[in-house]
């Protein structure tokens, strides 16, 4: 057990956690932030992506114990003051989702890309999203959404 202090979606929390608890379980089970989905449990599908100190990470293979002092943003914390992030807007507009299960991770990855790179090319978008699997859409709407969001950020 270890006590960790973290900031999640702008809220500071301090909790005692087992050494081996995964960030995805912590978010979903302890904080009921169930927008972070678990699709594969093994770091391969990207459904569980969150931001850790501004970088996208797969929360299903991140230990909470390693996050002491970190700032974490989940999909629930992306909108600010009730206003959706441009990437969220764009996914809705361009039908970048069907069943929606991959969507939170996909959106979080895309936001990270656009924060690091202002106007990525289509190829750069595709390369970046390589670690996020979508079984429904065929990715057309997703890539279109990221491109559109880039132009609005």
């Amino acid at each position, binding site marked *: 057990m270890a006590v960790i202090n973290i900031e999640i979606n702008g809220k500071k929390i301090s909790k005692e956690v087992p050494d081996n608890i995964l960030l995805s*379980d912590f978010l*979903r*089970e302890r904080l*009921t*932030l*169930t*927008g*972070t*989905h*678990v*699709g*594969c*449990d*093994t770091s*391969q*599908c990207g*459904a569980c992506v969150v931001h850790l100190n501004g970088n996208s990470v797969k929360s299903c293979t991140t230990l909470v114990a390693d996050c002491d002092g970190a700032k974490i943003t*989940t*999909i*629930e914390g*992306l*909108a600010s003051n009730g206003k*959706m992030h441009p*990437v*969220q*807007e764009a*996914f*809705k*507009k361009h*039908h970048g*989702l*069907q*069943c*929606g*299960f*991959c*969507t*939170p991770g996909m*959106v979080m990855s895309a936001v990270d890309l656009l924060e690091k790179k202002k106007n990525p090319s289509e190829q750069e*978008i*595709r*390369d970046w*999203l*390589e670690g*996020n*699997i*979508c*079984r*429904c*859409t*065929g*990715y*057309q*709407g*997703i*890539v279109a959404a990221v491109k559109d969001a880039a132009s609005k950020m």
Partner: protein
Amino acid sequence: MKIENFINENRPHESAIKHVSGQAHYTDDIPEPPGTLYGAIGWSKKSHAIIKKINLDEVIKSEGVIAVVTEDDIVGRNDVGPVFDGDPIFPKKAEYYGQPLYAVAATTTELARKAVLKAKISYKTLKPITTIQEALKKKSFVLKEKIIKKGEALKAIENSPYRLKGNFTTGSQEHFALEGQAAFVIPQEDNDFKVFSKTQHPSETQQIIAKMLNQKSNTITVETRRIGGSFGGTETQSFIFAAICTLLAKKTKRAVKLRIDRDDDIIITGKRHDFYSEYEVGFDELGVIKGLKLKLASRCGISPDLSGAINDRALLHIDNAYYLENVLLENYLCKTNTASNTAFRGFGGNQGMMAIENIIDHIATSLKKDSAEIRRRNFYQKKKKNITHYNMKIEDNIIQEIFDQLIKSSNYKSRMQNIKKFNSENKYIKKGIAMTPVKFGISFTTWHLNQAGALVHIYFNDGSVHVNTGAIEMGQGTYTKIAQLAANALGLPFNKIKVSATRTDKVPNTSASAASSTTDLNGAATLNAISKIKKNLSEYVKRKYKIKNSEGIYENGMVKFKGKIFKFNKLIKEAYLNRVSLSSSGFYATPKIHFDKKNFKGRPFLYFCYSAAVSEVIIDILTGENKILRADILHDAGRAINPAIEMGQIEGGFVQGAGWLGCEEVNWKTNGQITTHSPSTYKIPAVSDMPEKFNAEIFKKGKNIENVINKSKTTGEPPLMNAMSVFFAIKNAIASIRDYNINPKLDAPATPERILMSIKNLKKKYEK
């Protein structure tokens, strides 16, 4: 006169905002009551064995474990088979590697998963049958074989100037819906159970649990709000998880959640049937098929599950878009010691279609003709050559128009020339192109499943509308489309309609959301319910205001009767105060269809969906690596209700089909152990596998000639088959190595290994 008011509106998915902000609940996200436990399943490590003893002492002692369930805890039916028995919840004899044997409930998922590993099981190993070939040899079948005849195939083949023989295999496919199998069960008073299940089929989940518990169906309520993709993977394969979760809840008298880990999910559940075919075909100098003899065998796994209907659909689609005058079909449903294969988008239809497309391709290379041309020559025609091998007259055929339009818009012919030139100039990198058609029949082939119910309420105080149906929202947008239909029928804005979670206590006796017919059926049932409420309203208006012969026109929040106009909300309130019912159930049963399964004759489908695709690929002949450079699709969606949603299905289906025929390969060891049980060993298409250029379009002139909601056509399954063009483009690229003179032997999926093997064989043949 009735005004035809068609919807054509690109509306975002009804849950889009919830999805992008993480607010949409899937089964595992549903808030839990205090004391909820978590389950895990222990499964067989042998693919065929007598279970001598299961020692669970260590499991029970394991940290956090509250209860263990085994076969002994099942008081009723120990089987989740949908049509026939054969899928025990906990078996006496292990029949496949991964078959559930026991389960535990513990205080956390992690502790439950750790506990199940501690069982000591002694097996007496038996020899497994794992492949189609072995099963054929040993006559190991789950159901009786089928022989179907039309005309005189053998004679026609014999009398044909040209004949070919060959065999062909299409592979299995793991569903890999991003949301895995999950269930959540809360015990209620009276021994009732509330079951949340990740399923395409709440009604059958309810019946199966009731039978397992020896309780009445009215004691079980199953609810499903949405599922994270499915593609057939939870049409029946979800039952065992809901059943086991209920057993755990019953035993512990506590709520239990069961979310299956991805690897276990792949190991425990069945997949797409792989098919093996042997063919003999006779044709003329134009490449027109005169006679076809085809043997189709599929790997069904341990039980019938849905294999009967899946193989029937394969047989019903061996014509794809082609007129076959003389056919002789044999169909074998092989029983193997592997998980019971099941529904997967296309439901056998696509496997049948691949068999005939491979034959057409073979004919084209043997005649040294362009395969698109040979395809065209074999198409069904409008006035003659329009009777299928199961004796259905095709009345809505538009394949010719679609094919011709696409051949032009995709510049197929000139690109073909450029590709040939490219190939003659490049030794190790080759390009290929192919064009394939799709004709896919819509309706459940099991007649009685073609029915649906709905429940519609209008609340008097604000005129808001609540809709419930048997439809499962799995990403295909059925809730959105049903709400659009309801809004249109009532002349209301979309946001006044709420389609709520599908539940067995609201709409009973539903069919699975499957066979691409979910919106057709449930949308029609919704409109039926609305028309009954409207009838109540117009009767009231007639009575009260002495207006005759007026049904009322519902538009822009107003209701117009002859000489009298109401605001919708006002009319509703007034009707309530005058004691008029504002709630109704609705029902729909597909007309016209009938099918005699025994003689394989009739009209199993209400209508057909048509489509065509051109794909261009590039392959590296030294490594087998390949890429789709461009795909052009023209798809018939009738008068699409929501073209943007249909487009998503068209694109997504294509990519999923390209996975099936390309990078996705399920593998088993000879002992029956599946080796491809995680995303690290099983590759589903990623964003980089998307075609570089992707031009998908909906056929503008499309219109359903049958009386289907909005004159639309469904887009669920048919788009997947457009990916056939990718496979034959790869084959075309391989054929270029020997100047298109020899038919390469290529089985699906065309993985890099298979491509290399095909090239190697081609070179050998050439040297001979």
